[in-house]
């Protein structure tokens, strides 16, 4: 039975995240680095390890800080760890935390590492706003000017149009298409109705609310003081709606194609702030320390499609590859966590997994299989909980492992779609 790591199994010990908050709301005054630190600090405390035993820290983020571009290193400088803890940052768009996790797992599988922390963080409230080219030129020249007069002369070259800043957009550099436009296109290509999307979004909210209400979801969360004065400790996600109704969702206007579109703010994941991290160990270190793993990584895979085609469909290719590497079929999987960027994307992914032509593109004769909806995103997903780009992967892995443990089930699969037409799938197992 082929498993990841050639016999050197990687254990997932615990996961912790901050509350996820719609950007511009309660976490707006936190940087991604601060959010990452909170998640990691609580992970160390809650999992009852000595920070000195951690030997690597890998973190992902999408919108990087211009001032501190290596978020992982900033986090590894928490006083919980010795200053000698090495750390690096990775980027794979919305699968950045997954990349962090698999990079850390690879190091453990190679025997280079025994205890690693991996995760990701994102603040979409605090994105860097860039100066225009003209403004940048003038500022750089002014900084080099040797006298005040020359500096003023340089600044005098500024023109009103130079004052307009550049804000980053969530658009594909290769196609110029925004993420929402891509989802809209996928809905049309795959014939995903507006109603199906809205019903799926409603399902996400209802299940996430149930998970919040019975604290299965909130037990993953670190308490975060609301800035500026810590008037309260934030302990739950603020995007999950208790009383969402189909009628409300159906009443929303499409955003990306106002005339013929079906993708709305209600069936898309919101821009979100948050961070998440998981603790990984070699199986032997976990045993030495008497730690009981939540689960083990059994396999994973990454894939990509042409971004100009169906930008968010690559998980459909990654999933069968990961399953093959795990020696399992979709039927063996007890729980599936599928990242929900858009309802249209999830429904397209599900359709793709059942399709022969997508299976062939992944190199298989038979379709991967029909997704059993009772095993899919049983506590909702990113549509309700939110999607801090760099953090989502670690959130999903944590939720998947915790729920597998609660249900005493054996196999779990997660998939994540990412900008650039990329996809990821991971299979985890419990003993």
């Amino acid at each position, binding site marked *: 039975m082929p498993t990841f790591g050639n016999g050197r199994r990687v254990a997932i010990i615990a996961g912790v995240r901050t509350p996820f908050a719609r950007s511009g709301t309660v976490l707006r005054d936190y940087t991604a680095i601060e959010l990452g630190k909170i998640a990691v600090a609580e992970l160390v*405390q809650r*999992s009852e*390890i000595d920070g000195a035993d951690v030997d690597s820290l890998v973190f992902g983020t999408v919108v990087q800080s211009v001032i501190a571009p290596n978020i992982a290193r900033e986090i590894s400088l928490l*006083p*919980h760890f010795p200053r000698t803890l090495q750390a690096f940052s990775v980027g794979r768009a919305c699968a950045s935390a997954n990349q962090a996790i698999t990079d850390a797992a690879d190091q453990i599988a190679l025997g280079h590492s025994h205890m690693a922390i991996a995760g990701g963080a994102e603040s979409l409230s605090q994105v860097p706003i860039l100066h225009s080219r003209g403004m940048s030129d003038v500022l750089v020249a002014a900084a080099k000017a040797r006298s005040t007069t020359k500096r003023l002369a340089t600044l005098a070259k500024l023109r009103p149009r130079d004052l307009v800043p550049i804000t980053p957009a969530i658009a594909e550099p290769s196609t110029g298409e925004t993420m929402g436009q891509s989802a809209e296109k996928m809905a049309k290509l795959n014939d995903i109705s507006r109603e199906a999307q809205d019903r799926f979004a409603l399902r996400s909210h209802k299940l996430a609310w149930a998970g919040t209400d019975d604290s299965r979801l909130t037990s993953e969360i670190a*308490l975060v003081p609301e800035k500026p004065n*810590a008037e309260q400790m934030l302990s739950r996600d603020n995007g999950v709606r208790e009383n969402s109704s189909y009628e409300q969702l159906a009443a929303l206007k499409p955003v990306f194609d106002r005339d013929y579109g079906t993708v709305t703010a209600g069936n898309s994941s919101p821009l979100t702030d948050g961070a998440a991290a998981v603790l990984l160990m070699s199986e032997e270190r976990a045993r030495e320390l008497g730690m009981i793993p939540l689960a083990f990584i059994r396999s994973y895979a990454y894939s990509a499609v042409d971004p100009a085609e169906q930008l968010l469909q690559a998980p459909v290719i990654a999933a069968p590859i990961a399953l093959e590497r795990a020696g399992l079929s979709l039927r063996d999987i007890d729980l599936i966590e599928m990242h929900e960027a858009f309802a249209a994307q999830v429904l397209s992914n599900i359709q793709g997994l059942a399709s022969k032509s997508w299976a062939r593109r992944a190199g298989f004769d038979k379709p991967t299989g029909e997704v059993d909806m009772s095993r899919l995103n049983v506590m909702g997903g990113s549509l309700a909980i939110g999607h801090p780009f760099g953090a989502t992967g670690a959130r999903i892995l944590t939720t998947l492992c915790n729920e597998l443990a609660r249900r005493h089930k054996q196999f779990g699969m997660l998939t994540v779609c990412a900008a650039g037409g990329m996809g990821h799938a991971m299979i985890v197992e419990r003993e």
Partner: protein
Amino acid sequence: MTQVTNASSILFRDDEAGLLLELQDGVAMLTFDQPNSPLNTLGTRAAEAFAEMFDVVERSSEVNALVIVSDKQDTWIAGADIEELSRISTPLEGEELSRMGQQLLSRLASMQKPSVAAIHGAALGGGLETALACTHRIATDSPKTIFALPEVQLGLIPGAGGTQRLPRLIGVQAALDMILTGRNVRARKALKLGIVDELVHPSILVAVARQRARQLADGQPLDIKRRSRDAKQLASEILLDDNALGRRIVFKKARESVLGKTRGHYPAPLAAIEVVQRGYEDGFDAGLADEARRFGDLAVSPITRELVYLFFATTALKKDTGLAEGDDTAPLSVRKVGVLGAGFMGAGIASVAVQAGTLVRMKDSSTQRIASGWQAVHHVLSAREKRGSITPAQLNDMMSLLGTTVDYRGFADADLVIEAVFEDLAVKQQVMLEVTAVAPEAIFASNTSTIPIEEIAAASARPDYVVGMHFFSPVHRMPLLEVIVAPATSSRTVATAVQYGKKLGKTVIVVKDGAGFYVNRILSPYLNESGYLLAEGAPVDLIDKALANFGFPVGPLTLLDEVGLDIAAKSGPIMAAAYGERMERASALQRVIDSGRLGRKSKSGFYKYDGSGKRTGVDENIYKLLPMGNRGAAIHETEIQRRTVFAMLNEAVRCLEEGVIRSPRDGDVGAVFGIGFPAFLGGPFRYLDTLGATAAVRQLDDLNASHPGRFEPSPLLRRMAENGDQFHVSSTRSSHT
């Protein structure tokens, strides 16, 4: 002490004093490394060696300049040898010692060859005065490098020219601030104030100092860019420091401020102001003469004697493991501490723990309570950050060590769990059992102020892990910690609590278990007596004023308002049950408590408070609760003092007699740092020694006659009176008894 004449570059060495003078490229490098001591101090022995070095420097034609460096890790020169100061027996002796220091440094200052102080680490007292006498001062930009003139804290004034050189260097206002408070000034601030001329990285300190020395010797300009001072500072200097009229205002204000703070109990700050002023009015030499004379007077004053005693007592406690002699059980190191309860005490404990670098797991029942606890910790630390004592990065690091939770996740690896939950035996036992279930190896410490530890531990299957750690409020400011040992508490548990308490920066006394332990037990009859006085018609503000005048930081009724009458209500019956008649709650206090007033926190107590919590005067309605109102027989201030203070002194002796405290030293330190017993009296036992046991017994007997049952002298005190004994071996100086 031999002068080296061979070809070596060593010009002079005195191994006994730890001084080495080497010639390097025309510069004499004087290295100070006092043997068998973590610090360099300036005793007579060192001063003699310095004088000889200065001789060599002046005489030697090869030497063009002098650099003074220290070989110690964290100190440059830490000031006078306090041991030696405490041996001064007459004012003249003190004056001569001061003159000797003055002359030594005047010689350094007037030397033909330039001198450079290369400072890394603490330059305190005589150390800073030495630096001030140099031509040029270079310091390292290190947190270890601090400057202070802490003499007032021992009841003294700087005695080696500091009162004259510092104001001339940095201005009267800044100099008075340092001299009157004794506060530490960090390197950056010192540069800004002008105490030092430049800051460098420690690795180049000696090289730069040597280079500066050569430049000075060659008459080259140093070309140091002076930092521009901010306009406000400059304006204030011009207006107040640089003209006689302005200075007079500064001196007057300083005097008023000192009198307001000390109520005249501490003469040293006033003497310092006088000496600085003298120097401005009659010149440097007149200032020096006054400095030496006043130093001599103060050195033998009883106040200095007591302050020096307390200095030695706390120094001795720093080395005390808290265990019985011969017991060398090693303490456990505390990496993670659990704190139960995010209230004022819990948050206070968390705030000192994160500052000590410990991981803290703070638990309470609701996120709302945790939020207020988090805020309280942040408040303490951000105040430190605003003062510049910690950097913003340190603030963030410390806050990140504070983990919060509403359940017991993250407790299993705690080495120590301190509970600060509701003051109720059943509640405390409950949380103790919860902790044992999740963290069976953790030491469990109760921060109870009244409940005997033995009673809490009775519910535990491992009572050897249970100890009391009684912090005082506000935790981040109060320097004392009582570690309370119950009969079953193990040595390892005690040693760990004591060592960790010291790591938190506390002065720790080990106290035997029993209601009120030590501090609250001696406080109880004192507070109670203020209740009797109230009932007899003494006005609230007069009672408080009497004890403030005695030297307490606040009077007993203000203290009750601050602590909270509900807290007093809880402890009263416990004390009465344990100690009987003399601790029966005064009915006047009981009536005020029963009226529902909680003190400051409910903005209603003995005093009134406005909406923002500012005190606005005595609440006259109090008197309606009292039999005599405020129209009882006039009670003289000294009688108020006598009754309250003797109640406390007598109880302190009972504590010693019963072995609640291990020594009079612990009793003195506990009262001074836990209650604010006047430091200038040295503590209850030092004060009793000053009064004499016989006189004390006579006073108590007298009081007991008019107030039967409350003032019966403790048997120990009676025995001591009969034998003419003292608590302390010598009343002039003793750190151990």
